[in-house]
């Protein structure tokens, strides 16, 4: 499978200062079973990348590898030219909201304050300016009025926004969002997208993992993944019926097929 680069330049030729994320031939295997084969891509700073593929396609493995949570067998991952170990604070992870216990005894502000930990270190204590930064982050995602609420009282979309605020509090340049639209209604999805647009306009680079095929055109770049890269590039060029069939194979449901067919008619 040929690996597509957005502008057909090789990674080496790409302008290093504007390339936020650089992946070359990243290969990962779980207990001898390959999960990702030779994934390469360059992500320009300030863009929103959609990572799309069926269950078991290696989307989570890719994100976890990029975050340094899983060791890759081969290949290179660089953020602004540096490996993750040298720039952890540049990169932040927004997990699926189902990943934590929402009954945990913390308030919305407490959760956002946790974003400071990476810079504060083990014995560091957050002070007034950290609190202000956390409230600013909540302001950005429109959750400041909820700061003293217990996290149990939040809806799915609000939980997602609180996680985003924590990532902003980390002052990260690159954000990984894992299924941010899970259990969220259409209007909240729209709100989260416009929030992501604002972040991208501020120079943040966002990698969004999503299995939903309905919002493909909202991304700047699309990575179609099924263990290897099926296609990578702007959605208009990449989201063709053929590519999606290759990505989803037999997993593509009739409804998904209908959706693609309708989109092809409109094109």
């Amino acid at each position, binding site marked *: 499978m040929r690996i597509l680069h957005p502008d057909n330049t090789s990674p080496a030729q790409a302008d290093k200062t504007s390339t936020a994320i650089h992946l070359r031939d990243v290969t990962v295997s779980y207990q001898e079973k390959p999960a990702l084969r030779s994934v390469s891509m360059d992500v320009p700073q300030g863009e929103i990348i959609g990572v799309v593929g069926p269950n078991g396609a290696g989307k989570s493995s890719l994100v976890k590898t990029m975050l340094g949570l899983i060791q890759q067998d081969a290949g290179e991952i660089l953020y602004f030219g540096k490996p993750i170990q040298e720039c952890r604070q540049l*990169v932040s992870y927004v997990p699926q909201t189902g990943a934590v216990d929402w009954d*945990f*005894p*913390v308030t919305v502000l*407490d*959760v956002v304050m946790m974003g400071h*930990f990476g810079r504060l270190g083990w014995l560091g204590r957050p002070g007034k300016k950290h609190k202000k930064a956390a409230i600013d982050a909540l302001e950005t995602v429109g959750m400041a009025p909820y700061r003293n609420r217990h996290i149990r009282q939040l809806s799915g979309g609000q939980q997602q926004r609180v996680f985003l605020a924590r990532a902003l509090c980390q002052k990260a340049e690159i954000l990984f969002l894992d299924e941010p639209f899970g259990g969220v209604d259409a209007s909240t999805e729209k709100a989260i997208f416009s929030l992501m647009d604002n972040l991208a306009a501020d120079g943040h680079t966002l990698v969004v993992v999503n299995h939903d095929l309905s919002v493909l055109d909202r991304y700047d770049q699309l990575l179609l993944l099924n263990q290897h890269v099926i296609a990578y590039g702007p959605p208009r060029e990449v989201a063709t019926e053929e590519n999606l069939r290759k990505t989803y194979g037999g997993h593509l449901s009739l409804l998904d097929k209908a959706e693609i067919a309708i989109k092809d008619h409109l094109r």
Partner: protein
Amino acid sequence: MHTLAQLTFEPQLWYFPFEELPEGLWTSVLVGITCGVLGCFVVLRRMALIGDALSHAILPGVVIAFLVTNNTGVWGLLLGALLAGLLTAVLINLVSHKSRTKEDSAIGIVFTALFALGLILISNLPRGTHFDLQCFVFGIPDAVNKEEMYLMGAIAAIVIGIIILLYHPLKLVSFDPLVATSMGVPVLFFHYLLMGMISATVVAGLKTTGVILVVAMVITPASAAYQLTDRFSRMLILAGFFGGLSALLGMIFAFILNAPSGPSMVLVATAIFAISMLLSPSHGYVFEKLRKLRLKRHIDGEDVLKAVYKLEQNQETATKDRIGELARLPLERLPKLFHSLSREQLLNFTEAAATLTETGRHRAIELVRSHRLWESYLAQHANIPPGDLHPHAEELEHAHELADEVDKTLGHPKHDPHGSEIPR
């Protein structure tokens, strides 16, 4: 060969030792506090089974330390227990991650194996040595000596010191380990740190409750605290307090009732837990009832204000009878409502009549406005015929903080559906 039949029931060993009161008592209180605080992490991280596992699995460590040092010196036992506790945590981690065995099964396999190994080791102790298995299993507080009390004090101070120093990373690691890892926090280190602290506390506290009941001291006070607060720091403090209190009261009851001390500490902790379930501000029965009562009184009070306002508008004297009639409240409830309204400086009243204060009149106008706005809203947006509007609006008017929003949505109407003016 020895058999488990040695585990005979000898109740006289458990009786409360009056002359040994200070050591046993203070050690128990220290164990209670430390277990309570550590228990918060166990409860929140859903590791209750691990607490049970650790307490059992330290047996071989204790026996080996006993064999090596050939006495029951506390420092040797502590080291043995710490190593055994950490080994347990590592083995559980290995079994659950390197095979398809799920964590709960892995815990079960590892701790029973280690406990069994400990029992075999005991049966092979050289002739003439006396290892008191019963003390290990059930605890004997009168066997606590000064040295052990100081040891427990040191452990309590170290554990609480570590938790205060590493409060923020411990909170992050417990709430969201995945994100903590992505920030470069060594999550596994913190896991083993907690395991180590629990092992040390359990072994130092063994003589007070024994391995079977020490789990209760870890889980129960922390669970009680969890019912009562939504803040992590408060939960830690409350759990420590409940743990210490359970130990203190448990020892006192054990003395009064001539009962074994470990079990009575556990029952006190359980009683505290039961009370906290009833009193929990968010889920508890008592506060639920209180909240409903308070809301009812608030609504009744507002109805009284509105009734007095209407009577004043009609130039009538606001007697109790007329107020009761208009507000649809039984007369015997009125004096109480009058008192609380006058405390809030909304109403003045004598035997004969009630009058509104300036603030009271404002509140009443606000209610009338809210009522009429809601009637307009319901008529426009819910298609309710004008005749049926009143009872619905009568409920909704108490949401008067939303009146401005309703007003805006409706485009600032001047009159309600019945033609009455909406006050500004």
